[in-house]
Each structure stands twice: as C-alpha cells, then as structure tokens.
C-alpha cells in the first residue's frame, strides 16, 4: 500500500524528507511543548497568575466586551497558555500521528467539526451552570451554609 504522506508541518515552514523523520520531528516538538508546560506549572511566574484585563461595568456593550474577551478577563494568563498549548499538542497528535493530514478533507471535517462543535457546546453549558451554582452558594443573600 503506497501511501502518499504530506511531509510538511507549520504551514510548510518545516519539510521532512521521509515520514519517519517527520514522526521524530513531531515528537521533539511535542516534548518541547510538554517541557514548557511543566516548567511553567512548577514555577508559576507571578506575572501570569493575575488577569491582565478587568471586566467592564454597565451597559450592553460592556457585557458584549466581557463575553468576547472572556478568556482574557476571567482566566489567569497561565491557565490560558496551558489550554492553548494543550490544543496545539492535540492538533499535532491528530494530524501527524493519526494521519489526519493525509485523509480527505470530507473525512477530516466530519470528525473534527462534529467533535469540536459538540464539545464546545457542552463545555459552555456546564461551566456556565457551574458559575451560576457558585453564585447561588456564595452570594450575599445565599441561604445555603456549608462552612460549619
């Protein structure tokens, strides 16, 4: 079975001579990303532990602004970096180890779009609800007491 492999990664920036070489190249890349994650996780630089942007107050457009920029407003930069790096790793595992790069675009979309859409939807719903329950427990007029 002669398979045609696409041998370039990073939008063609890096082109490998053979499939085996590409595999080792991707391994090195994934190892570097993991190492960055671990180092950041151990040292937790102070600059990345507090959000950089504060939420805006009042009005419809302020709310819209808060929603659009929510990853920067409500998430520590460190956590955002971790999540982005994880998605980068997931991309290279799927594209190069699982040969998604070599599949037809229809197969690729069928698998990736379906999963990404459903997972995003699920995460949005559950995290939204979790934040709401937190408010119910911790608001000024909360009727629930758990610290006794």
């Amino acid at each position: 079975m002669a398979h045609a492999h696409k041998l370039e990664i990073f939008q063609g920036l890096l082109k490998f001579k053979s499939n085996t070489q590409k595999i080792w190249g991707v391994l090195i890349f994934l190892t570097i990303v993991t190492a960055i994650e671990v180092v950041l996780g151990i040292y937790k630089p102070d600059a990345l532990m507090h959000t950089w942007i504060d939420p805006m107050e009042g009005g419809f457009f302020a709310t819209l602004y808060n929603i659009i920029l929510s990853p920067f407003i409500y998430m520590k930069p460190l956590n955002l970096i971790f999540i982005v790096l994880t998605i980068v790793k997931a991309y290279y595992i799927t594209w190069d180890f699982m040969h998604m790069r070599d599949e037809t675009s229809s197969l690729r979309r069928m698998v990736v779009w379906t999963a990404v859409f459903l997972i995003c939807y699920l995460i949005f719903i559950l995290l939204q609800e979790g934040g709401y329950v937190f408010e119910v427990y911790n608001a000024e007029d909360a009727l629930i007491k758990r610290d006794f």
Partner: protein
Amino acid sequence: MDTTVANTGTEGKTWGGGNRPLGASYGKLMMWFFIVSDALTFSGFLAAYGFSRFKFIKEWPIADEVFTHVPFLHGQELPMIYVAFMTFILIMSSVTMVLAVDAGHHMNKAKVTLYMFLTIIGGAIFVGSQAWEWATFIQGDYGAVQTKGGNILQFGEKVMVDGEEKFKRISIDEFVVTMATERAEHERKNGLWFVTEETLPPYSVEEIYKGLEANSNILVRNQIINDEGEKTVLSREESLRQIKENGQLVVKGANLVVNEYGTSLFADFFFFITGFHGFHVFSGVVINIIIFFNVILGTYERRGSYEMVEKVGLYWHFVDLVWVFVFTFFYLV
C-alpha cells in the same frame, strides 16, 4: 449467490456502490466514528469536572500540593515531575506505534514486530505508573480533620524559607497525643451477621485537639483560597476553636467518601476520570498484544496489508490524546 442479485444498471455510477468517497476503508472509518463518540464521553467527564470545580472555585484543592511524590524519592516534594514523566512515556509509545504503522506500509514485518513490542512496553509502564499514583493518593500523606460541614482542616506551621514566610505542612502523626480508649468492637457474632465493621480512622478528633493544644507552633488552614492563590491559614485561637467546635472525623488519604486534600468531589473525579482513562490504556495494551501476536504469526503478511495495525494505532493515539487533556485539567490548570 449470483442468481439472487439482480443487475441494477447502476454499476460504475456514483451511487452504484463500490466507490469510497472518503478514501478510507470501512474499518478505519468505523474506528474514527468510535473515536468521536469516545471523545464525547471523555469530554462529558472533563466538563463535569469543570462544572464541579466552578461550583467550588474558591476551595478546590491545589494539584501541586496533592501530587508531589516520585517513586524512590521519599520525603521530597516534587510536584509535576512524575506526571510529566508519565506523559512523556505515553507520547513516546504513540511514536513507536506510528513507526509501526509506517513500517507496515513498507510491509516490513521485523520492524512492525519491534515497534509494536515497544508500544506495549510503554503502555505497561504507563498503567503501572498510574497504579502507583493511585496507591499514593489513596494512602495520603499528612492527614486532616473533616468538619461537620464536610470541609477539610489541615495542619502545619509557619517557617522562614529564604527570608519568606511559608506554610509547611505537618503530619498528624507527629503531634497527636494518643489516649487509651475502650470501645466495643462489632463482630459478626455480637451484632448483625451481614455487616462488618469499617476501618476506623487512625485517631479521634479529641486526640488531635490534645496534640494541637500541646504544640503552640501548629496552625490550621482551611480550604478557602485567598488572593495570593494559597489556602487560608487561621490564627492560633481560631485553629483551636475550629478543631474543637467543628472537627468531626480524622481523615487520612482519599477514597470515594472522604479526601484529606480537600473536597471529596476532587477525589471522586480523580478516580473516575483517570480510572476510565487507565482502563482505556489497559484495553489498548490488550488489543496491541493481540495484534502483536498476529503480526508475529504473519497474518497481515498473508493478507497483504498491515491496515489492522493502523486501526489499533488510531485507538492508541486517541488514548494519548485524551491523556494530554487529562494532564492539563487535572495537574496544570
């Protein structure tokens, strides 16, 4: 058979059958569909974890304080190191798997055998590491007191490290004052025959309180995370008061009911998600072993294609993919 099949006159046309619009065989396509559905199962678990965490965002355990152990290095606090090692092992076994698939494309039986073998070894090391991680987590290290409200109170003292005041955890074993108490033990012959007595906590809250009273350096910290991202340390008076008035149960280690590291949901999700993932790794290793023997026996050589290796390879990479997310959301974020 031929007589039962009618000619439809559509042979060679788009809907006449026989063409593969996605360029993938039936088996590979079905493996992809399974992976999508399994990915949704895992994201359901992880999203539920996120839900519970958002619900208790101010008091969730800090993973760096929970997973600090490395085998053979007793008493050293090395957060992340061992999980990073496990992650690397799994990525490495993914690489040997993809090399096996590549060797299969070249019909190189010897190389497929070697790489499949290395993949199995990598998977076994990972499952073993996870078992060790579980054992360490279940055994616990410092112990804590659970309050009536189900919250956790932990012990430690303030020490100066490099001119900075740090909170250093102290194990309950180090300061507890044990008292001889008598209680009637439940046995099958003197009570309900179908009930056995549960394992008792190592100490009573009263013994802990006596020990706390005797050691004026020891403070209690609760679950609430303060602005510096650390757990709140109580004053000496408040420490004594909390244990005396609210302490209910001495906890050591974690299981599905209690958890010395913080909210018991953390332990529940840890067991559930890493357990489900570990089960996937285990089943992946078993399937890999079956395919490994098929390769040795020459099944795929005779079949003229190593596509079966590719299909289990997809599953194996998927297990690696899931771990990347579990690693992020359990140990990093």
